[in-house]
């Protein structure tokens, strides 16, 4: 009893006195009630989950994600303490999919790329919530987003972030840049989509796509 009281007291002290005043900012839907209904037609509700790399697996997980991405997390804002907001979508009591967004550095400003996914990790749609780019109109056009539908992380592994090309021909090759003058923002969008899929595989899908990365499956 005595030790329980001391333990509760110590936990209380550490929780309430050790809180950091400021934390990194994640990528949330501006109006989740409206956005979820619009992005996931037929849904009746959602639950919100917050996951951060530093809490989930620390440096080891960050290294694994960077390895799978084929690129390092960079700069002031792409850090392990960024909280990722995952919207778990329901129809009645059935879980029917997820919506998840990431921030990505673009040529002229921030890009927020949300992916709407089914329970198997297949992309149902792509949504740019924010896009500061000279080619914003073209990239936000429905035709561009449609090119991502039906793809999964298994397809995106072929996309090499460094070169902006696919290592082996595949479905991702079919995604065409609608504004060749905004090549940088196109590649930023592709990187954001790949990063988004990898994070979801780590956080939600139990690394079911890891075998494609390791070459155990085609």
């Amino acid at each position: 009893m005595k030790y329980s009281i001391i333990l509760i007291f110590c936990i209380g002290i550490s929780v309430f006195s050790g809180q950091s005043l400021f934390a990194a900012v994640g990528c949330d839907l501006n109006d989740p009630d409206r956005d979820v209904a619009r992005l996931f037609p037929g849904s009746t509700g959602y639950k919100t989950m917050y996951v951060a790399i530093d809490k989930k697996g620390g440096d080891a997980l960050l290294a694994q994600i960077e390895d799978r991405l084929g690129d390092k997390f960079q700069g002031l804002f792409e850090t392990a303490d960024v909280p990722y907001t995952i919207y778990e979508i329901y129809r009645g009591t059935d879980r029917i999919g997820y919506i998840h967004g990431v921030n990505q550095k673009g040529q002229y400003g921030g890009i927020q790329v949300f992916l709407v996914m089914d329970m198997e990790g297949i992309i149902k749609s792509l949504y740019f919530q924010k896009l500061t780019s000279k080619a914003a109109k073209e990239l936000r056009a429905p035709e561009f987003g449609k090119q991502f539908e039906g793809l999964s992380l298994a397809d995106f592994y072929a996309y090499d972030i460094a070169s902006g090309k696919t290592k082996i021909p595949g479905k991702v090759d079919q995604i065409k840049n609608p504004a060749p003058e905004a090549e940088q923002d196109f590649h930023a969008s592709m990187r954001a989509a790949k990063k988004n899929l990898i994070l979801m595989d780590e956080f939600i899908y139990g690394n079911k796509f890891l075998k494609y990365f390791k070459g155990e499956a085609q």
Partner: protein
Amino acid sequence: MITIYKVSFKNLLRKRTRTLLTIFGIALSAWVLASLLGFNKGYEASLNKDIDNMGFQVLLTAKGCPYEAATLMLKGGTGLRYMSEDVIRQVVNEPEVDKVTPMLMQAVFDPNKGESGGFSAYLGVDPVTFPRMKSFLEFKQGGWFTRPDTMEVVMGYEAAELEQREVGDLLLIPEKEIELKVVGVLKRTGTQDDGTIFMPVKTVQNIFNKPGELTGLGIKVHKEADIAAFEEKLYGLPDVQVVSLAQVKQTIMSLVTTAKIMVFSIAIIAILIAMVGVINTILMSVFERFQEIGILKSIGAMPWDIFKLIWIETFILCFLGGIVGTGMAYGLSKLTEILIRNLLPYAPTGSLIQLDASLAGVTLIAVILIGFVSGIYPAWKAARIRPLESIRSEVN
């Protein structure tokens, strides 16, 4: 040698649970009291700091546009009113004025923000006077603008985080399709500066075609100046409106006073409950030792000795409760702060509860005094016990 203090202490140990609960009750009262005293001190200090962090005490705006940011939100960037730069010359030579800094706020509609678009705001500031007035601003990366009319921006931390910008990156002004170079990212301040994109005022005037126009003039007055008299003087200027942060502070403080009265009332109730608890505990202890006290008196103890014995018990209870309560106030100050922040109509940034040794001392003395007052009746009751009566009651 056994002392009266040891006897009192041992008496308390005979009913440990009751003693502990009484100490806990007193500790809760001491916690509330210390936290309130710390809040009294911390709130005003934090508010003053917030106002100091704005860099100026008086804001001059064009008439009809008192709150730029609010206007932008409500009218979508179209409701801004402007005043001429000439106002600087009219104000700067006043004896009360220490520094002035001109500002021009502008907003553009960004159709690619959210589902139906949003506004992006830019604050034009003077590259010479603004950094001097806001000397507390620190940079995470880079520094202020290199020239007065340069195409450069300095971003507040949150603005930079949203736009994922770092020093050397480009920033696009939507609608205008104009590129600017990021030369500085500020550290977090906890103020509105965190979400602001700063540009040289001349650059904003050029980009938005507002030559010689301003939306605000920040004025820092000398410390010894009579701000009220100075404000009256400013009202004499044509087509301007004066927003005094002294007035803002007064309004906030009057709002907070209401909350303070409410919390103080709760504290008084908590203290009264603790007092009743102490009286009850000691009185029960006296009744339980009715016979013992009678025997003590029959072997030579004087009423004053009995009074002291009981009074010291009260003192020990209150002293221990006061120590635990003050410790709780220190240890749980963050929790208390969260609770208070939820209660207040406006809470400034920074620590709302500032505890120090003098406040801890005041709390402890207050609790001990309350204890002494609470102990008078039980001690007096015990001192008046008649030996024969009490011994006879034991026989019965």
